[in-house]
């Protein structure tokens, strides 16, 4: 126990002397929070729009007003020919163009269907479909109002109740903000960095400068060495977790709906796997650069892409979906999102928790064995 503490103290002293690493430990979480909290935003708040009002009537202006009032559309140009519209779309000045045809008001007054043309820059499919949704919403709303008004005028009750009106309630993330979805899972990334990259580099560094050899000839037992090396990075990881959660709750206003302690417990289970992977990396890398590169491309990339962190697993081809089962981050992120956003209790997350536990123990033990073998 004393020997382990001795190594832990030494490790912290060394960290203290390494300003770059120290900054990395505390700035990386903040930076990632800012990146994923603000920059990585898939919400579409402003649709740059061009409008060609061929009708120029009360009704057409009324419709344009609806677009403006919705808050989503910013009308950058009132065009009067196709050439202008084509130009704006090609140059990327506007995402969509709305064209109100000549007989718009006349059609409405005569109870004919009034067509409305919308042209999109479809190069970003995701954005386009969101904007399309907005336009359809506004158009349907407008049409309903016309029906209501006309019923008032004629005195006949034209009910729109007959048509199906979905009443949509979005739970857990009512504003559908990307941030709410992203920020909780950042903890997974932060733990990846502190435990895998930093820890494997710390061990490889000792091998590089020759102190590992010195430690092997001392009475330090391999398990003491492993624990002494792991514990500091677990502590750092948890400090980072608390940091991220504080910012998440108090800055981004994303409350933790579920049990905070279960969250910490799940984080601990996840860390077992990542420490194991870090330990494994340290046995296959000869230099710190090597450890860094392997961690970046061999671990971080597949973890980020295949864990559901960035892309929905359901959209992946079957083959990749199977691979995701092997990635511990997948289960951790499921737990993070469920506990933080939905307030899910432990009983809903038993399979994920068990898998994390089993993976963690297996990976850590296998790596520790390999590490022990490599020592001699």
């Amino acid at each position: 126990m004393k020997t382990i503490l001795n190594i832990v103290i030494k490790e912290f002293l060394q960290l203290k002397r390494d300003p770059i690493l120290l900054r990395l430990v505390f700035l990386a979480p903040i930076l990632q929070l800012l990146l994923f909290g603000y920059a990585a935003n898939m919400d579409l708040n402003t649709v740059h729009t061009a409008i060609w009002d061929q009708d120029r009537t009360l009704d057409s202006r009324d419709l344009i007003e609806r677009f403006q009032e919705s808050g989503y559309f910013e009308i950058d140009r009132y065009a009067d020919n196709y050439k202008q519209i084509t130009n704006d779309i090609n140059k990327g000045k506007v995402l969509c163009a709305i064209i109100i045809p000549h007989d718009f008001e006349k059609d409405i007054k005569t109870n004919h269907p009034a067509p409305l043309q919308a042209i999109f820059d479809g190069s970003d499919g995701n954005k386009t479909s969101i904007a399309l949704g907005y336009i359809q919403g506004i158009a349907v709303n407008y049409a309903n109002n016309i029906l209501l008004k006309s019923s008032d005028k004629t005195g006949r009750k034209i009910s729109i109740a007959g048509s199906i009106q979905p009443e949509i309630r979005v739970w857990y993330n009512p504003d559908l903000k990307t941030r709410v979805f992203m920020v909780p899972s950042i903890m997974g990334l932060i733990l990846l960095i502190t435990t895998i990259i930093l820890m494997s580099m710390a061990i490889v560094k000792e091998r590089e400068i020759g102190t590992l050899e010195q430690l092997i000839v001392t009475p330090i037992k391999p398990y003491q060495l492993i624990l002494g090396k792991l514990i500091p990075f677990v502590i750092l990881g948890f400090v980072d977790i608390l940091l991220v959660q504080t910012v998440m709750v108090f800055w981004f206003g994303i409350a933790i709906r579920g049990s905070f302690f279960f969250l910490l417990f799940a984080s601990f289970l996840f860390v077992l796997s990542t420490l194991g992977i870090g330990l494994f990396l340290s046995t296959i890398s000869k230099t710190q650069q090597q450890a860094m590169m392997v961690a970046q491309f061999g671990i971080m990339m597949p973890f980020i892409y295949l864990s559901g962190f960035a892309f929905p697993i359901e959209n992946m081809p079957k083959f990749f979906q199977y691979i995701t089962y092997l990635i511990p981050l997948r289960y951790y992120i499921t737990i993070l999102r469920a506990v933080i956003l939905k307030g899910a209790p432990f009983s809903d997350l038993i399979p994920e928790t068990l898998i994390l536990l089993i993976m963690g123990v297996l990976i850590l033990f296998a790596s520790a064995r390999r590490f022990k073998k490599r020592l001699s």
Partner: protein
Amino acid sequence: MSLSSQKGNMNSIEVKNLTKKFGSFTAVDGISFNVKEGEIFGFLGANGAGKSTAIRILCGIIEPTSGDAIVGGYSVMNEPDKVKLNIGYMSQKFSLYNDLTVEENINFFGGVYGLIKNKLEDRKKWVLKVAYLEGKEKLLTKDLPGGIKQRLALAIAVIHEPKIVFLDEPTGGVDPISRRNFWELINELSHKGITVFVTTHYLDEAEYCNSITLINAGKIIASGTSKELKTKYLTNTMLEVECDRVVEALDIFSKQDWVEETSIFGNYIHISVEDENSARSLAEKTLKENNIKIIRMDKIVPTLEDVFIYLLEKDTKKNVK
């Protein structure tokens, strides 16, 4: 019971038929030797000769394939942990933490060996004194001069007062004066009764050793004191020739069948010959034919380097056959 009374009587290390195989490669091939308590034991050999493997076995890091060694009274086969407690080790790589201060290094390694409070403070004082670092314990280790670092590393390697210390090429990359000081420290340790097991590439350092063992291709090919090695193994005569146009002369000598070895030492040439008298006349005759003037030609005592080159080449030729 004082240590000095035991010196020369008891074996500190006893190696019996030690063999280590890595797959089909035999790194250490059935070596046996003893190291007496308190002596400085030089373990020499080319890179890859099996030196490092042997040291690693003796330090309890790796298990031998067969055979055994008793180090400080404990078997490396059965009690490697006890062996580790009773030895110190310093490797050719600098073995302290550069990013820790002098004191933090002492505390860490002292702690590793279970030194606490008073004992640790006592030993800390001793380490600082030996490394000339009294009052400088807050300095970062990386800022120390090379020679001082080396002394600090050695002092820390024996912080727990082991009976045996292993030094694996401890003076690599250190200036000559620091090297000399370092060897004085090694001598001090030896006088205190600590057995020093040292490997080195510098043959002038080997002269400081009480006993030298030469290993090649996993086998011991010679052992004894420096004097014994020079007289026992090298039966040839060494002639030192001072003459004009040294390079040309060396070239001529190396083509003669009566010359076994040639080597150049500054402005002189060393030639190894079987019979002194015939060689003298042959040398004079040959050089005269080439218009090279001999200034001086003397029989000399061979250096350790002469002996080792001779022994290694002989052994390598034998192995090839």
